[in-house]
């Protein structure tokens, strides 16, 4: 019998395979014979309209709901043969409604899984501090707070820290950034990408936000009414959406969204013109179309220079709004280029050192490719 296979990432193995899984809640059929393969050490994003079964899929994966039919297997093992609690402890789970223990402090909440696993007590406090920093919560302020003293977004971030608590190889995240403002959300996404590049965990991430999905996903799963409509790399889905539904879901600015797939460090030019002083005629001749970056002693960009229509235009760039990070998307790069009024934006690394520049031509090339 032919299974409805979806394309799968070729450069990694399959962590989990769901074959024709169905879940019924009484009358409602939350999942209808779903077939899904989750790649190892990659970010899989589930997206779809509310009620399409995203959370249910996550709960199937860590055995929180019973399958009405179908099989989920991890490598060669079927989920039915595994100890549910053992399975869950290998998977950090950031639940959609956060679900912090109301009687435990932030610290105790984040520390719960290590405690369950019986980790050595020493070092755990320090670990909590690191995790809180990771989700941009000042440990000194938040450590001893109780859940009811947190805002929705803060609670959500504690939930994420808790999911990361025992450094699980697998992360299930159900709309983890749903309740934070766009700015913090973007920072958290940046942080997420940065961590994921280092740690290479198997992540299954649920979101409503198509931009977030395209940004974070290595493998994108689009769901509708309990079924998987299309599952592929975001590039593939953006360039050839399966049907009207997917196309409408992606929105009219598909090509702009494609830019979010590329990060600055992959597209930037590293041989840039820079120096401690402003540009001399020999370094940046009047007919040059390049940018020149004036930097301080620490190689941090201060100003950008460029000849436009016979005039040397300069822009102050020393704030974070005027430069982009190595892991910023090309979409952000374009926004920065437009707001600066220079044909390029300076790329800085984590310490703020000049790393390279992203040029407008590059963006053009990407969007026509």
């Amino acid at each position, binding site marked *: 019998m032919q299974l409805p296979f979806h394309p799968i990432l070729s450069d990694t193995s399959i962590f989990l395979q769901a074959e024709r899984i169905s879940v019924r809640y009484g009358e409602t059929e939350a999942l209808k014979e779903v077939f899904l393969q989750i790649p190892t050490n990659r970010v899989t994003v589930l997206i779809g309209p509310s009620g399409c079964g995203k959370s249910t899929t996550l709960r199937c994966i*860590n055995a929180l709901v019973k399958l009405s039919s179908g099989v989920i297997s991890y490598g060669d093992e079927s989920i039915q043969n595994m100890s549910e609690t053992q399975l869950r402890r290998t998977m950090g*789970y950031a639940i959609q409604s956060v679900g912090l223990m109301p009687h435990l402090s932030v610290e105790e909440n984040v520390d719960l899984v290590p405690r369950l696993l019986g980790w050595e007590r020493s070092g755990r406090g320090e670990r909590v501090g690191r995790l809180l920093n990771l989700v941009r919560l000042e440990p000194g302020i938040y450590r001893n707070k109780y859940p*009811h003293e947190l805002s929705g977004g803060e609670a959500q971030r504690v939930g994420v820290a808790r999911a990361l608590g025992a450094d699980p190889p697998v992360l299930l995240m159900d709309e983890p950034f749903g309740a934070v403002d766009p700015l913090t959300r973007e920072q958290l996404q940046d942080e997420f990408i940065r961590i994921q590049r280092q740690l290479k965990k198997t992540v299954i991430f649920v979101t409503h936000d198509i931009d977030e999905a395209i940004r974070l996903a290595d493998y994108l799963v689009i769901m509708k009414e309990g079924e998987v409509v299309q599952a592929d790399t975001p590039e593939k889905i953006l360039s050839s959406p399966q049907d009207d539904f997917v196309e409408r879901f992606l929105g009219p600015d598909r090509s702009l969204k494609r830019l979010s797939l590329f990060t600055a460090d992959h597209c930037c030019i590293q041989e840039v013109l820079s120096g401690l002083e402003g540009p001399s005629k020999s370094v940046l001749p009047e007919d040059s179309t390049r940018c020149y970056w004036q930097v301080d002693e620490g190689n941090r960009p201060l100003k950008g220079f460029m000849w436009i229509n016979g005039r040397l235009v300069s822009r102050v760039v020393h704030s974070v709004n005027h430069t982009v990070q190595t892991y910023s998307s090309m979409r952000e790069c374009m926004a920065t280029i437009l707001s600066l009024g220079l044909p390029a934006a300076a790329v800085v690394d984590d310490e703020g050192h000049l790393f390279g520049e992203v040029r407008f031509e590059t963006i053009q090339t990407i969007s026509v490719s």
Partner: protein
Amino acid sequence: MNRNILQRRALDKQVAFALFLFLVSFTLPFLQSRENRISEEFTVSAFSLGIGPILLLLLAPLVILTSAFIPNRKRAALLSTVAAAFGIFSPLLVLSIVGNALVADLGAFARYSPASGMYVYLAAVSILYLMKQKAQSRDKVALFLVMLLAIGMGFIGMFDRLGILLEARNLGTRLWREILAHVRITGVSLLISMVIGIPIAFLAFINKAVRRVVFPILNVLQTIPGIALFGLLIAPLAALSMAFPVLREWGIQGIGNAPAIIALSMYALYPIIRYTYTSLSGIDEQVVLAAKGMGMNSTQIWKIVRLPLATVGILHGIRVALVQTLGNATLAKLIGGDGLGVLVFEGLGQASVDMVLLGMLLIIALTVISDRLFQFLINVFTPASLIREER
């Protein structure tokens, strides 16, 4: 600013009401005397008390009236403290002085007691206390001093002829016995209903079938009037003790403390089971889901999540049951039990208002004290996070 005025207005309404009650109290008999415990009473109204006592009694209303017109809030608050303190002290002083004068030539069994006027007066004073959003330490100190003074007055014999104290003295050690019996009956009933009720509530929470059986029964039980339940138990228990004489040796028979304790524990089951069940089922399902999701097994979910979150609710249920049982234990006397009900119902039988009053006051005092003690216990057991939430 606006809110200040509003608050002030609400306050003034309360002051006006208190003043009205003070006024009413002056039109009613303030105290009464009797030649002996059951003879006809002789009432005295506040107006006929003479200039000294009247001035003393007027002190509280006048001071509170002044405080309402003072713009300086701190001074107004100070005055209201003074008014409230005098509001308790003055009537006690007047009661003892005038009362002692009244009974001086009425013979050895004569006694005096407060009458309706004094009760209304004290009601007005209680409004002064309730008016304050939060009792300040100053008010507490003032109240404590007044209590000390009143106890001092008692020691030098100023209340020797006060009706209820006379009654208490006449009862002597019997009074202590009944108080202890009341406490014991309540304690045993509560213990029984806890031992039975809490496990039932847990079972009901876990098992739907148990729930379907327990709550209808409980609801019916709760609608049976107290006295009826007491009465209903006489026959079966009498029959039991006839059939098994051993039971009689243990004190289990148709009348006496045993049926009272059984009836009281059946009544206490309701709050205990309800509160325990509600505090278990009221735990956010998402929290439990999260706990499961992070790999807690069911023992751990009980230990780390459910029990800590339910404890305070369970304790509140016990507290409600305690207060309710202390009150209901009064009825034990009706089927031959002991306790403070003895004073109340004997007093009723002998038409001795003072004795009834003594019983009632002691029950109220017991209730208030044990409620406070239990509340303290609950606070000790409440995790820091949940205390902060309540505020």
